[in-house]
């Protein structure tokens, strides 16, 4: 899969990303690092433990990382959840979490084919 196909598959904007970041090779290098980024799992654990402060911070980091890598669908899902626990406060709308899981899964699967 090319990087262009990758971005199409995960709901990202290839053109916007390549205009911001140095080169295709570097984008790929960072995208391949994403599976090692701890913020998704931190967020998952924090939600299970109902640690809302950590949930806020982890979703905030996840949002920032996804945004920087141009993974827009993941970025938007994380940003919505992040705003919901901002304060920090408990997550009232549980339906905000599955889209984050789905977007993350989609990214990880696509990376495996990259």
């Amino acid at each position, binding site marked *: 899969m090319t990087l262009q196909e990758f971005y199409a598959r995960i709901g990202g904007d290839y053109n916007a*990303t390549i*205009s*911001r*970041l*140095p080169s295709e090779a*570097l984008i790929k290098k*960072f995208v391949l*690092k*994403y599976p090692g*980024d701890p*913020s998704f799992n931190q967020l998952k654990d924090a939600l299970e433990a109902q640690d809302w402060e950590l949930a*806020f*911070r982890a979703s*905030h*980091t996840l*949002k*920032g*990382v996804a*945004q*920087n*890598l*141009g993974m827009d669908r993941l970025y938007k899902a994380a940003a919505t959840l992040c705003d919901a626990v901002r304060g920090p406060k408990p997550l009232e709308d549980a339906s905000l979490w599955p889209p984050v899981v789905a977007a993350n899964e989609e990214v990880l699967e696509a990376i495996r084919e990259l």
Partner: protein
Amino acid sequence: MSEKERILIADDSAMNRAILTEMLGDGYEILEAEDGRQAVSILQTDASVDLLLLDIMMPNMDGFDVLTMMNKYHWIDEIPVIMISAENASSFVERAYDLGATDYISRPFDMAVVRRRVINTLMLYAKQKRLVRLVAEQVYEKEKSSSTMINILSHIVEFRNAESGLHVLHIQTATDILLRTLVQKTDKYGLTAADIFLIRTASALHDIGKINIPESILNKPGKLTKEEFETMKTHTTIGADILDKLPFQQESELVKTAYSICRWHHERWDGRGYPDGLKGDEIPIAAQVVALADVYDALTSERCYKKAFDHDTAVQMILNGECGQFNPLLLECLTSAAQLPTELGQSAAAESHRNYLAEAQHISEALLQEQAGIRTADKLL
């Protein structure tokens, strides 16, 4: 400049740090902190950070806490900060600017923007640093020649008093050490770095009144008679009079400080000194410190009527009240200033190539800071 400029990236996400590092390229030396506390501890130990890229949401200490600390320690005056937060709400941006951030880069990071803003900020600060250095060099030249003049003047007086060639240098060094120790213990006297430098300089003039004391009394090896001692005591008021009758520069801080020191460096904390019998903090702090430095140097130096005591003995004698009573705070400073004997021993050598430049730098930075403070206050009004 041969060395690379150093940029500290404080962001809790390793991915974001890696992206920024890659964007900045090889032209810089990159330091990384994964939370606010690490960032502060790097800034604390490493004075040579040229720029800080700072995230807001971080564990332990967040970006605002880091900015607050940087204000508290005045690092913000020298190290520019560019915010790199994913938080774009205007309240966050404003708060960061209010706390002294230079710039705000929103996400997603754009390489061209990151590079350009980093370069611009570094250039701006390099210009400021050059200006500070320029001012420092000017102050240095001025201070160097005026210090030399003062030292020559006080040496003229000392010259008649055959035994104490190094007395003036010792007084200056001891005054300096005591004052620096004092400001670490209390801010009661509101002494700035510039005040300390001024008192140190003026302390050289403490005995100018001796110019009018007959050499037969000044250099008498035995004990002075009551009349002779009364004459000797007048060196305080004579010195003050000389300064008081200066036909010029009456308003100069140096003259005012020197006046206090000349007149009151034989006053004692309990009011039993001379010439005015002032008590406690009625005695200006400059005179209190020089009085203690004077006594300490008299004890630790050889005189025609006595041998030199070592540091510990001298301190013990002073604490026992054998030379009169002193401000208890200053006595604390004296006991904790263990570096006194070595630094006095080196003061003659040190004086010849004393690091005026560092001091001038200090003073000019303090001046600039004061100016900046006034400007900020104006803006807030």
